[in-house]
């Protein structure tokens, strides 16, 4: 019997910490439930980002979310990276540490993208082995997120939700269900997002991500540059119902508005949590949305883009 959320607290409604909001957060101490940080932006910092984080840690629960673990890579794990990750988690008293089911590079390179793995038995075995190693180093369960993906491999033998389920059950790791990514991938790969959400092991979902994306007409890109669209909220309502409530976080990484607007967007989740589930989104629905809304900028860049610029007098 697995405890809901693997025993983790439901932290409520959180916001991804971004440097553009530092002054507002420090000056106003907004009534946000928790913050998620991009781990790599703070692991080596000895300047203002780390200083701001230390102050925020005193007031808010912190969750660490990484983009460079590369759990699915065929390159060796980077133990220097893992040691730094562990050290930061201890310093900020991270409630949990998450990353993505992906690889970011091979042959010593880092593309800084979240690249998809073939969903087959050898890859599953490989990822499971590496999760065990990471969890041994971190001395805690790893939480892994479903990424937005844009290709599928012919050699894949199972749907992503099955891969995630078997991976989580074999390793006892947790899941971060990004319902926007489920939606984006469902449009890109012609699957039913409701079936996906219904099929993942709900008791292992520790956290949920919400975000906006960009509709490119024939596919979607996970750009984190706007509000959450209704079909994604519907998937969120389903997730809430199936899990009984989980820590929920909004990511907004491009064209970032003032903090209050970002916070207001995640607070909409309250209404969705209290609503009855009245409708569902199918792959056909997703298809019609693609054809209705064709506002794609030509420069849309999938997340992650995480760089903190210098502040100079």
């Amino acid at each position: 019997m697995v405890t809901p959320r693997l025993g983790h607290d439901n932290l409520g409604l959180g916001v991804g910490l971004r440097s553009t909001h530092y002054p507002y957060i420090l000056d106003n101490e907004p009534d946000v439930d928790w913050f998620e940080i991009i781990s790599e932006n703070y692991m080596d910092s000895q300047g203002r980002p780390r200083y701001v984080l230390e102050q925020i840690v005193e007031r808010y629960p912190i969750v660490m979310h990484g983009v460079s673990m590369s759990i699915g890579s065929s390159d060796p794990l980077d133990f220097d990276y893992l040691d730094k990750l562990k050290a930061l988690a201890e310093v900020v008293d991270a409630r949990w540490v998450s990353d993505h089911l992906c690889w970011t590079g091979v042959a010593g390179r880092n593309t800084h993208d979240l690249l998809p793995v073939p969903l087959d038995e050898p890859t599953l075995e490989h990822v499971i082995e590496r999760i065990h190693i990471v969890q041994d180093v971190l001395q805690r369960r790893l939480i892994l997120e479903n990424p937005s993906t844009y290709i599928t491999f012919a050699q894949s033998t199972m749907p992503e939700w099955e891969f995630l389920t078997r991976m989580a059950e074999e390793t006892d790791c947790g899941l971060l269900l990004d319902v926007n990514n489920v939606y984006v991938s469902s449009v890109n790969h012609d699957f039913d997002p409701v079936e996906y959400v219904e099929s993942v092991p709900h008791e292992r979902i520790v956290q949920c991500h919400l975000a906006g994306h960009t509709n490119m007409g024939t596919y979607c890109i996970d750009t984190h540059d706007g509000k959450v669209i209704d079909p994604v909220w519907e998937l969120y309502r389903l997730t809430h119902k199936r899990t009984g409530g989980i820590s929920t976080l909004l990511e907004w990484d491009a064209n970032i508005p003032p903090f209050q607007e970002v916070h207001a967007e995640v607070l909409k989740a309250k209404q969705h949590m209290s609503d009855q589930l009245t409708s569902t989104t199918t792959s056909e629905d997703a298809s019609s949305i693609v054809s209705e809304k064709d506002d794609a900028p030509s420069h849309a860049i999938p997340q992650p883009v995480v760089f903190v610029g210098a502040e100079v007098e």
Partner: protein
Amino acid sequence: MSTGHELNVVQRWMQAVITNPEGIVDGVASEAAQQEIALDPATIESFILPSKRCSSIERLSVYGNAYFARLIECLAGEFPTLEYALGEELFGDFALTYLQDYPSTSYTLGNLANHFVDFLVNSRPQQEEGEEPQWPDFLIDLSRIESIYSVVFDGPGEEKVELISAADLQQIPAEKWGGIRFNFSDSFRLEVFDFPVHEYVTAVRKEESPEVPSPQKTWLAISRRDFIVRRQSLSQLQFNLLKALLEGATLSESIEQSLNELTHEEAAGFDELAANLQDWFANWTAAGWFRSLNCD
């Protein structure tokens, strides 16, 4: 039992394809990709599935388009003034070549630009001996100062350490001044530029649309206080004095050395130094440049 390619082969193939600057079709045809998995546009669907609305090539292009765009955006974030001076397109061309020569090997984008200044220096057209600094030197100076700003901004600093104060200096007996050695703050940097790039950077950040300045030897102290990067222009004499101190010389040794390094035209330096030395140290101490001092 899988009938697919091994994971490392799949990943080396995909990385070769999506990081090819000429695009996905050329990436698939490239030697690096072909030696992993021999595919062509006609057979690629046997490996990368199409969707209802997109071909396999179109789907791979999402990753291919994003790879350079994402990293160029990050470089532009670190070098906003250089991008302004070059223009978005030319900056993008330099960044694209740089990323091919120096692909990221780090878990953090904070290290992406580690070789960028050297790359620009090595890209500079050959210079005649004794030639005045030119446009390429201005660009190199800009890249240097923005790189230094980034390093100082997120590197070690003294915000949590008690630094020496003007009062500490005043307590030192006059006869001991000559033997003082200063330990500088970790963030403190002394830099020389061929152009007043610090003023240009500030003007661009204030959106003042500055003109490219004429060459002018510029001596700067760059440091961090209260987590903000600060820069202060120096006279050559001040620079020489601080440089000698930074290298570990005593104050009297540093004064002698810095005066000796002045050119004939600047020989009035002794008077300048004698009149201002006390004020200089008061200001430099207030700026937080000195962590501690020792007296011989």
